[in-house]
């Protein structure tokens, strides 16, 4: 059962719509926890031994594993189910969003303008001239119809409403009651690794609906928190959502590769599983921009998903690259994140990559027989 907080901007659901969402969430949990591990068993107990018997060696690359596994009937079954569950996840949230869209847009306008009791209200700055990068426009990331950046109607917020509930179903509720897991993960990291760090200005790059921006603003109430993203509908929603939750965040529509903030504007620059949605060349520019925006002594923290260590793990972690429109993320396999930060101008003693193993249960791991976050840390 997905425990999810019904804040002011979430579309209400009918009896059937709610059942549909709960089933998709349960199905995905079942696929992750019960079926997905079978791929590793099939590979280690059948596919790899058969290959070795035929060739006298084990598969030596992710590519060879892909050639073998995509012909395996068990993998094919799981993959077809995984793909369909992802499509149904969006279908189950699009229905209620579409049904209530005019009222939701109206609500977003009102929430956006509303003052927050006892504090400064959040702001929204859109740039209709911003060029949305090709890694966003080439295909709709994660199969979300229309992507995160397309306006289909005036003052559209549909992409945000769909994303909010959709990503929660994606991990069977594992992202938390306000989709706060990734923000919480970095907050926990900073509390442990830098207990005295008290940022006064924070930038959340690729913030989407601001689910992590809100976590940072609550954790450091004295800090001014900015969230940026390339998508207008998702930012309108982020602004209204933060207002509905009573948290002040300043959202702006910008590309993290080149922002309009002056040098040294922030004590802390963060992103949450965003880097793999950019391209290999964009990544270095995002890291260089992070560095430019940091004050001396400031911290950069980019949270990333694992890409696998063995050939089989790499193949599985790239399932989304081939089947879930994470088209550009393949470049992340075997990429040395620390090395990319050096290319972006950080000195070797300013950079490290830490690993952090979250307490996820088997229904939330999706592609790995092990799971850990990578955290790219840069210090100015």
């Amino acid at each position: 059962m997905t425990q999810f907080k019904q804040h002011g901007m979430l579309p209400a659901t009918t009896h059937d719509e709610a059942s549909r969402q709960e089933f998709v969430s349960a199905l995905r949990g079942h696929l992750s926890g019960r079926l997905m591990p079978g791929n590793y068993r099939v590979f280690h107990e059948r596919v790899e031994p058969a290959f070795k018997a035929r060739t006298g060696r084990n598969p030596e690359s992710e590519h060879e594993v892909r050639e073998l596994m995509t012909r395996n009937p068990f993998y094919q079954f799981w993959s077809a189910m995984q793909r369909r569950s992802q499509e149904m996840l969006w279908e189950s949230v699009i229905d209620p969003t579409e049904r209530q869209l005019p009222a939701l847009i109206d609500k977003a306008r009102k929430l956006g303008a509303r003052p927050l009791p006892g504090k400064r209200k959040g702001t929204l700055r859109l740039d209709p001239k911003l060029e949305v990068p090709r890694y966003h426009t080439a295909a709709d990331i994660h199969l979300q119809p229309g992507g995160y950046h397309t306006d289909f109607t005036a003052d559209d917020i549909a992409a945000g409403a769909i994303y909010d509930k959709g990503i929660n179903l994606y991990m069977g509720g594992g992202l938390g009651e306000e989709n706060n897991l990734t923000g919480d993960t970095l907050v926990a990291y900073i509390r442990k690794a830098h207990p005295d760090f008290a940022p006064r200005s924070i930038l959340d790059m690729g913030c989407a609906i601001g689910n992590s921006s809100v976590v940072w603003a609550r954790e450091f109430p004295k800090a001014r928190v900015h969230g940026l993203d390339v998508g207008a509908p998702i930012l309108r929603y982020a602004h209204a959502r933060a207002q509905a939750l009573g948290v002040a965040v300043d959202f702006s529509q910008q590309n993290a590769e080149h922002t309009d903030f002056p040098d040294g504007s922030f004590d802390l620059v963060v992103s949450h599983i965003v880097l793999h949605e950019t391209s290999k060349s964009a990544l270095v520019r995002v890291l260089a921009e992070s560095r430019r925006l940091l004050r001396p002594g400031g911290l950069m923290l980019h949270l990333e998903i694992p890409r696998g260590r063995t050939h089989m793990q790499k193949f599985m972690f790239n399932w989304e690259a081939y089947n879930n429109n994470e088209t550009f993320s393949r470049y992340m396999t075997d990429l040395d994140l620390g090395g990319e930060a050096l290319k972006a101008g950080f000195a070797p003693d300013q950079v490290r990559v830490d690993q952090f193993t979250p307490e996820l249960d088997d229904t939330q791991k999706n592609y790995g027989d092990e799971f850990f976050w990578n955290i790219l840390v840069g210090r100015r």
Partner: protein
Amino acid sequence: MSSPADPVKPPPTRPKGHRPVVFDDPAIDQLHAAYVTLATELAVAFERIDTLERLLERHAGVTREEIEGFEADGAVAESRATRRADLAQRLLRPFREFREDQIARAEHARSEPGRAPDEPSHGS
């Protein structure tokens, strides 16, 4: 920016991008997609039935035991039997047509000895 009075256009329902084909025969991909949908709708129906049963219990005094112990007899049993047979008929229709197709192709192959016969069918 257009005015709030403009009609609101809904988001699209299909994502931009190529849909991968997993199985050798793309028809199997479609079959998988269809039955996952069917399972979802079944879950939706189960939940609605559960809601109805609970409301009946709460407001109409119909107990769970009564529902569990309900015996269909006479016309009710007959109507249910007809409905079950109809479902089986509909469900197995593609398989029946597939079998007939296989038989027709095997007969065709026998009548043209120069061509390799189809593989034997595995039961039906």
